[in-house]
């Protein structure tokens, strides 16, 4: 029983990062209708920027995080300006492939700037733990979970209560009509990219806190996308649920299946595959995710 609780808590902490990344997906998707395969890469860039300011220039950690967030927002706006402003109204295939291409460009450029090595960021809660009875949890994990919850509540309020949030939702639904209703569509898109990238940057910094900064941390993006899809791209709550489900499934698979041998088949590290298998199974049953709604298409 204790083991199950431990797996659940660890799954929750991994899930929180997935959920944060997934939140970025949903945010950009809900306002621009573009699915951003480069979300993980943007997170990686954010972590590297934070690393550059905190470790190479020796700025205080909090300041480095703030600078990274601002740079992330700028980066998001630039990405929108350079690539996606011209992509409005293009077919789904083109937009997806542009983000896939963008992902490899971002990785390549980051490789040139920061190299392929692994780096660590020293933050105020590095290597600090909190003991609760038998459980030992790192402070970083607690901050991740806590801040994720706060952010998620803020976003839910933003989309449902604020004028801008509703304008963003409307733009995603139908950019032309939203434009006619007086919404500055271009501005809304740019804003969505800026905020979406900022969230990704934050997720990247948390991810770096849990392990290290490196180029391949962007792979987490794919898993976060699986989480977002599992929950249904439309809903923020779904993204969180998806993230936690994937985190817990991974924990269970790593504990009970990894390393098993079945005849001449070695299970090896089955964690990642288990996450994807769950995603496919859910999609087969509910093609639009757990909370997703089927859209009525016009011919």
């Amino acid at each position, binding site marked *: 029983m204790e*083991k199950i609780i*431990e*797996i659940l808590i*660890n799954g929750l902490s*991994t899930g929180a990062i997935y959920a944060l990344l997934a939140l970025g997906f949903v945010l950009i998707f809900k306002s621009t209708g573009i699915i951003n395969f480069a979300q993980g890469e943007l997170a990686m860039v954010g972590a590297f920027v934070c690393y550059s300011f905190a470790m190479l220039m020796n700025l205080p950690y909090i300041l480095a995080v703030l600078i990274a967030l601002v740079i992330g927002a700028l980066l998001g706006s630039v990405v929108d300006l350079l690539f996606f402003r011209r992509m409005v109204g293009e077919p789904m295939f083109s937009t997806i492939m542009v983000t896939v291409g963008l992902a490899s460009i971002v990785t390549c450029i980051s*490789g040139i700037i920061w*190299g*392929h*090595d*692994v*780096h*660590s960021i020293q933050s105020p809660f590095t*290597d600090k*733990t909190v*003991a609760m009875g038998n459980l*030992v949890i*790192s402070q970083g994990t607690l901050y991740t979970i806590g801040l994720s919850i706060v952010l998620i509540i803020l976003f839910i309020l933003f989309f449902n209560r604020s004028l801008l949030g509703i304008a963003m939702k409307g733009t995603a639904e139908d950019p032309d009509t939203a434009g006619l209703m007086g919404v500055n569509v271009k501005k809304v898109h740019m804003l969505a990219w800026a905020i979406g990238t900022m969230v990704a940057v934050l997720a990247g910094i948390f991810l770096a806190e*849990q*392990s*290290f900064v*490196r*180029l*391949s*941390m962007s*792979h987490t993006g794919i898993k976060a996308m699986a989480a977002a899809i599992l929950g249904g791209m439309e809903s923020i709550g779904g993204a969180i649920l998806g993230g936690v489900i994937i985190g817990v499934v*991974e*924990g269970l698979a*790593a*504990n009970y299946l*990894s*390393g098993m041998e079945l005849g001449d088949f070695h299970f*090896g*590290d089955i*964690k*990642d595959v288990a996450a994807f298998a769950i995603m496919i199974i859910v999609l087969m049953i509910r093609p639009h995710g757990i909370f997703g709604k089927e859209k009525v298409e016009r011919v």
Partner: protein
Amino acid sequence: MKTRIVVSSFILLGALCLMAGGTWAKEVRGVTDTEVKIGCLVDLSGPAKYGGPPIAQAFKDCVAWVNDNGGINGRKINLVVEDNGIMPNTTMKAARKIILKDGVFAIGFNLGSAGASAILPLCEENEVVLMPHGANKKFFYPGNKWVFVPHTVQYSMACRAVEYILEKNPKARIGMIYQDDGFGREGLEGARAAAKFMKSKLVKEAPYKMGTMDFTPHMNAMKEANVDTIVLWTYLPQSASVIKQKVKMGWDVTLISNNTTGVPPLFALVGENADGYMLVTPFAPVHTDVPGVKRIKEINKKYGDPKKTLDNPMYPDYLYLAGWGYIEAMVEGLKKAGRDLTPDSLVKGLESIRDYNMGGLCPNITFGPKRHVSSFSSLVLRADGKAKRFNIIDGFKEPKTPQ
């Protein structure tokens, strides 16, 4: 009408296929009266980029030194360094280029286990001697005419690690975290064999996928199995993650790992937490005071850029030394092959190397017709977190487990 054209062109094609079989007598590829071309396949791009430049540097320094001293049997070495991008398909392209286009005589280094397997048929077909670096046990057992392994392989190192632990404490409960690929599994096999030989066993085995950074589940499983020593067959980032996780869990467990993690950047990643981290390696740390290391330091000073290489405290020195071991083996083989240089004479030359003195830099090199691996012995190092370096705690020894 149209069908006839199509059919007749296909017949023509077929006829041409049959004609295309002729070969012609030729001189030896990559060898002229004054020069011999040696290839070096390392990563200059991609995820393992940190590994390539030190190896290439060692090759360049050594080649400059050899050429400066008159070359080998009247021939200077012409070094061809090519980026192999670690992936099997990029390695294949690189190998095809240096063999078919640049026409190298032999490949003195290839980084990456899967890539080396992938280019094997190409090397066999073109009679290229290949010296691969990576998980290599299968290259000398059962063995291949063209492949020579001038370093101690992961299997032997894993045996050494487990034997070292069990000799210190026969009752040690050993767990193993290994990378789920050829590299990690060769380590796992070695560790299992050694544990069995010492009448013990691995209590818990946990594989991880290459690139994983979150070791929470693995370490939890280890703790649950009540393990007191963990053998890590991991790369540097993963070892650092495990150490970080160990600190997070507040768990004092002994860690022993392999040569790839024995580089100074480990201290940049985990700082003093690295203290006590052990590893098995065939290469002496560059601060060690042995004749072999001193010699290459001098050569490096003369031909290379020591500020950026061996004198740089963050330099992954074992890669430089590994490169050195390879090129020295190749140079010695070329020397022994004599003036009449052909692929077969190089194989004979390499096979006649006996106990070539490396001066404590790495184990001495011995090859033979039935033995294409240079040595089985390795050192045990221990990390000193304050001085930020590794110290030898157990000298060169061969594992007792049959290899």
